[in-house]
């Protein structure tokens, strides 16, 4: 499974889920359909059986009521008494039979009424043959029944007709209260009549059902198969006290039973469920065929659809492989479609473009960094060399007792040390003033001491931190542009104070001053002279303080120039350092 590709997994999942779904739904539907079919089938049997059993009940009730009616007939009682008291010849016997025929009104059924007169041991019937016969009383013992079974018909083999036949019947006594004579009556119905009237129509079907009428004792009392009549049924599970029951029995047979309330007899329907399920099985086979065909179609559809779906993914994968192999120019060809895959391809290409840019940037940064490292190494060598050399010269000047030169070299060394930032990016105002003093000492030597300097540094400003050599370019400008070597009253005044939580530094000169346009015109020269221009100072302030610090230049022609710095008060050297700023970001 793990070795399967995405497409194979997708096809497999689709097929598996679909096949399972179809199989599950088909199975459930088949089961439901089958159960419903069985229920419908049972309902159909139930409804037919109900009708036929009601008909059987009605027939038996009519038989019973007829028998009761005959037994209460005064005419019959009198006929019996008259016969017993007569000579009992043929004519007398015929009267009894005729009277019985007259009383018998059993509708459509060809019923037979029997009268046994124990006093004469004779049996009379309404039949044309055997209308009178001598019989022992033991022959009618079969007519006896339990007291509580008055409505249950008798079922027995009737031998009184000449040919034995199974009959249903009701029996009772008839007594003439006047004479005390009595007789035993039995009204019978032929089993075949009942069968053809009630069961034959039910048996005449194509579903293989077999109907039986069974007594409450389990004897088959009406069936198409006459050889079964009078036989005790082996399976009597239906005699469970339930009025209607359906159960499946061995060999996939269903046994339906309904018990008559009136007679207590059962109407059974035994059917072969395999015949019933044949249609269903054919449906199942058809469903299996449809399932197989559906799966074939599904496989074809799955292969086609997933092929189309998989194509952009495959392109993406191939492009990724090319990139892995080092072809960073490789890009996914966009199809122009507006689907998720197009978005993915577009996003991938954008990502690769971005990565390309980042890589170029990194390469450039690395190159610059390497160059910077090399330069830094060179710069580290040069100042040290110069610094050490200058110190050696300074000591040589001291040894030769040229203190002035030694001091100048000392000032220069301090400035050099500051310029290579040995003391850090930020120094206290006091240290910055010291550097300015060193610088001015050098400049004073250069300009033959033609200017004076004044320092007014407020005590609260002394410990404020400022960027190292912040003032030096401005002081240098003041020296270069503010000093007139032909005058002897040149003055450079440097002040520092704290005002409104801001450190203010001013550098004033009393030189000729300048106009703005002159300042712009002379910018090249100024840069050439000082080495560090105003832009340098401006950029440093911007880098360190952002908008919190700035400087202004006021110049009045003929009166001088004043440069004033405004900075935030800082008592910590790292407060506005670049490193701190980076950490803050």
């Amino acid at each position, binding site marked *: 499974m793990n070795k399967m590709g995405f497409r194979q997994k997708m096809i497999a999942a689709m097929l*598996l889920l679909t096949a*399972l779904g179809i*199989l*599950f739904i*088909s*199975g*459930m539907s*088949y*089961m439901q359909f*089958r*159960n419903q079919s*069985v229920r419908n089938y*049972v309902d159909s049997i139930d409804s037919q059986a109900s009708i036929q059993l009601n008909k059987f009940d009605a027939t038996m*009730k009519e038989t*019973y*009521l007829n028998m*009761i*009616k005959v*037994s*209460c007939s005064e005419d019959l009682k009198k006929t019996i008494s008259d016969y017993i008291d007569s000579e009992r010849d043929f004519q007398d016997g015929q009267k009894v039979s005729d009277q019985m025929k007259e009383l018998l009104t059993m509708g459509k059924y060809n019923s037979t009424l029997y009268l046994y007169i124990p006093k004469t041991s004779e049996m009379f019937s309404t039949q044309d043959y055997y209308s009178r016969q001598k019989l022992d009383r033991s022959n009618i013992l079969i007519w006896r029944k339990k*007291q*509580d*079974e*008055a*409505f249950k018909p008798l079922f027995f083999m009737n031998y009184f007709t000449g040919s034995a036949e199974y009959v249903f019947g009701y029996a*009772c006594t008839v007594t003439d209260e006047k004479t005390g004579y009595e007789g035993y009556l039995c009204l019978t119905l032929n089993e075949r009549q009942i069968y053809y009237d009630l069961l034959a129509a039910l048996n005449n079907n194509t579903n293989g059902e077999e109907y039986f009428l069974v007594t409450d004792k389990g004897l088959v009392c009406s069936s198409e198969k006459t050889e079964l009549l009078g036989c005790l049924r082996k399976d009597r599970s239906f005699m469970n*006290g*339930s*009025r*209607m*029951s*359906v*159960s*499946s029995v061995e060999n*996939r047979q*269903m046994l339906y039973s309904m018990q008559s*309330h*009136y007679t207590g007899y059962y109407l059974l329907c035994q059917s072969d*469920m395999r015949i019933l*399920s044949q249609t269903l099985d054919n449906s*199942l086979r058809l469903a299996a065929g449809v399932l197989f065909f559906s799966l074939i179609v599904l496989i074809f559809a799955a292969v086609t659809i997933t092929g189309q779906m998989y194509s952009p993914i495959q392109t993406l994968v191939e492009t990724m492989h090319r990139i892995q192999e080092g072809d960073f120019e490789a890009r996914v060809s966009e199809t122009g479609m507006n689907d998720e895959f197009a978005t993915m391809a577009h996003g991938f290409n954008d990502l690769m473009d971005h990565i390309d840019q980042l890589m170029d940037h990194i390469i450039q940064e690395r190159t610059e960094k390497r160059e910077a490292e090399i330069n830094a190494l060179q710069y580290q060598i040069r100042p040290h060399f110069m610094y050490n050399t200058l110190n050696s010269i300074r000591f040589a000047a001291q040894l030769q007792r040229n203190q002035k030169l030694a001091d100048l070299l000392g000032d220069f060394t301090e400035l050099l040390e500051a310029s290579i930032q040995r003391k850090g990016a930020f120094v206290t105002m006091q240290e910055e003033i010291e550097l300015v003093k060193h610088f001015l000492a050098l400049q004073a030597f250069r300009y033959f001491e033609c200017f004076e300097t004044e320092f007014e540094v407020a005590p609260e400003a002394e410990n404020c931190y400022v960027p190292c050599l912040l003032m030096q370019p401005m002081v240098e400008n003041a020296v270069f542009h503010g000093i007139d070597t032909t005058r002897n009253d040149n003055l450079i005044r440097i002040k520092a104070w704290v005002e409104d939580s801001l450190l203010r530094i001013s550098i004033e000169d009393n030189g000729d001053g300048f106009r703005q346009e002159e300042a712009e015109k002379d910018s090249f020269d100024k840069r050439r002279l000082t080495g560090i221009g105003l832009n340098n100072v401006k950029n440093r302030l911007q880098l360190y303080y952002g908008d919190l610090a700035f400087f202004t230049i006021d110049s009045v022609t003929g009166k001088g120039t004043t440069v004033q710095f405004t900075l935030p008060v800082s008592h910590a050297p790292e407060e506005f350092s670049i490193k701190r700023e980076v950490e803050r970001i």
Partner: protein
Amino acid sequence: MKKGWKVLMIVLAVGSLLSGCAYTTVSMRREEPRYSIGVVTKADNSPYWLNLESGVREAAEELNVDITFLYPSGEEEAEEQKKIINDLLDSEPDALLIAPCNCRDTRWVAERAAEKDILLMNIDDHSADIKLPYAGSDHVQIGKDAAGYFKELLPEGGNICMLLGPAYQMSCQDRMRGFVDYLDKSFTIAGIKFTNMTQKSGYQAVMSMEAKPAGIFCQNIVVAQGAIIALQEKGWDAKIIIVDTLEDGELVMKRGNIDGVMVQDGYFIGYQAIMSAVEGLQNGGEIEDVRIASGILTPDGIKGEIQ
């Protein structure tokens, strides 16, 4: 999780196969009836009794009750009915409803029923020799209503004859009592004849009358038809009120020979009787009498309430 999915798939597949291929096991049973009730009527040879049987069976179906409905060959066949009742008692139903052919011979039924703990009640007609719960028409009221309607038909009064059923039927006695007690004094009871409910007996009863009656109150349509033939033969004209079903009443009313029908609703009586019997079985045998009022069907329509 993956293992769980695999198991689920396998279970689904096997379940599907099994559910589809497994053979259906059939097993059904019908709810057993709650009670078994025997009903023995006087006969089954008129629309009234057929309607009553319909009402009985309808109620039985509603209440899931087994009914054994039996009857003798005629309303006078008390001996047949006695045998039938005996057989029914032997079969030990939960309740037995009888419309006695002989109202004076029912005590033995009550005794046997009590022995077997069978709830016994009268339907349609009540016993004379013992008091039993009753469900049927209010026969006294039928007599009263008939007498009242005669006053409307014959405001002047006149001779009235009554052609009733057998004298040993309490329904006849009740109708007679209600009729006689309530009949306006402007009327004279010219004769009370007990018939065996046949056309012939109605015919003979009228033929035996010496004076022309102004009105005849008949037991039913069958007796009335005999009476009408006799009246025509004698050239008499009389107002006739009968007691019968609505269907029969409407039929004869269209012919114009009958002036009023005291309607007896057999269906409703049968239905109510079973309802009462089941209620009695449920509450230990206590049953209240159900006496159903009858309306009068006249040529102008129905007066009073018919269920």
